[in-house]
């Protein structure tokens, strides 16, 4: 069962999850995606909602359908890389906005990140 936030359409959140699995390699390029029914079971989500998320991903080109055979992850590695940087960019924008709300300037944030990564490296 997947957790969903209450303020956004479920299909958008499903798209996020699936995209994450694609960029982090859970699903490899050219892999066959589980069926709608399997995904619906795993996420405890309505199959029509899964269908909608998959159609949207297909429209973006990251998935493709092979007639009768099912849905597959694109083999275009450049496209997956692009998706990855796009998702990273979104995270970054959100993070920077929050830090700005806390009163941090970009250079302070960089110092913080460096300090944090040194500490975690030392652990």
């Amino acid at each position, binding site marked *: 069962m997947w957790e969903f936030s209450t303020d956004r359409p479920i299909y958008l959140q499903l798209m996020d999850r699936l995209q994450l699995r694609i960029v982090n390699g859970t699903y490899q390029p050219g892999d066959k995606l589980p069926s709608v029914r399997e995904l619906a079971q795993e996420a405890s989500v309505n199959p*029509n909602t899964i269908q909608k998320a998959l159609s949207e991903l297909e429209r973006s080109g990251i998935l493709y359908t092979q007639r009768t055979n099912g849905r597959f992850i694109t083999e275009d590695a450049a496209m997956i890389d692009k998706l990855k940087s796009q998702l990273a960019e979104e995270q970054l924008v959100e993070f920077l906005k929050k830090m700005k709300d806390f009163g941090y300037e970009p250079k302070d944030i960089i110092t913080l990140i460096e300090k944090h990564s040194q500490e975690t490296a030392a652990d």
Partner: protein
Amino acid sequence: MDTILECKDLTKRYGSFTALSSLNLSLEKGQIIGLLGPNGSGKTTLIKCMNGLLAPTSGEILVGGYRPGVESKRILSYLPERNALPDWMKVRDLVHYFQDFYADFRTEKAFDMLKDLKIDIHKRLKNLSKGTKEKVQLILAMSRKADLYCLDEPIGGVDPASRDYILRTILNNYSEQAAVLISTHLIQDIETVLDRVLFLQDGELKLNAAVDEIREQRGISVDALFREVFKC
């Protein structure tokens, strides 16, 4: 898509009290639909009209094109809100009882689900806990291969783990040829499972919308919308 349920100016009065007021509604197959509303809003009355347990005061209700009767009951699987089964019977015998009654009953499926939920089939229904009784009834209702499943408060009394199993069972059973209508107060638990929600208030249809449409247009969950609409 095929229409599975149609209400035309459906009205039901109990004496001077109007339980359903000129309800117009059309539901298509291939959907899981939540029937939501506060206590006394007409949910069970609507469900009983679908099943022919209540006759409309005026207007019409059609299940798969049939008025409630032998044909409609053949395609509608009903889980009543209260136990309607003979409680002296053993679970195993109830399965066979359903098998005899309904041509579309899948006996093997019923026994599989009973096993998954670790229900002792040699026990009598009356000796089971409240939650387990509910599970047995739900399993029996879901083991039919119906066109319309009509579940009146199916998850009220069961623990969260079994609730997940039941929701998965409903999803697993999903087919484009069938529709599932679930009446419940536990919106949060089933929100992601639903395609569409119907809000009933004082016997009138307040809202008939797709779940993601609500989230998209209002930026809130169905649960939050329910609390907003029916604020006391």
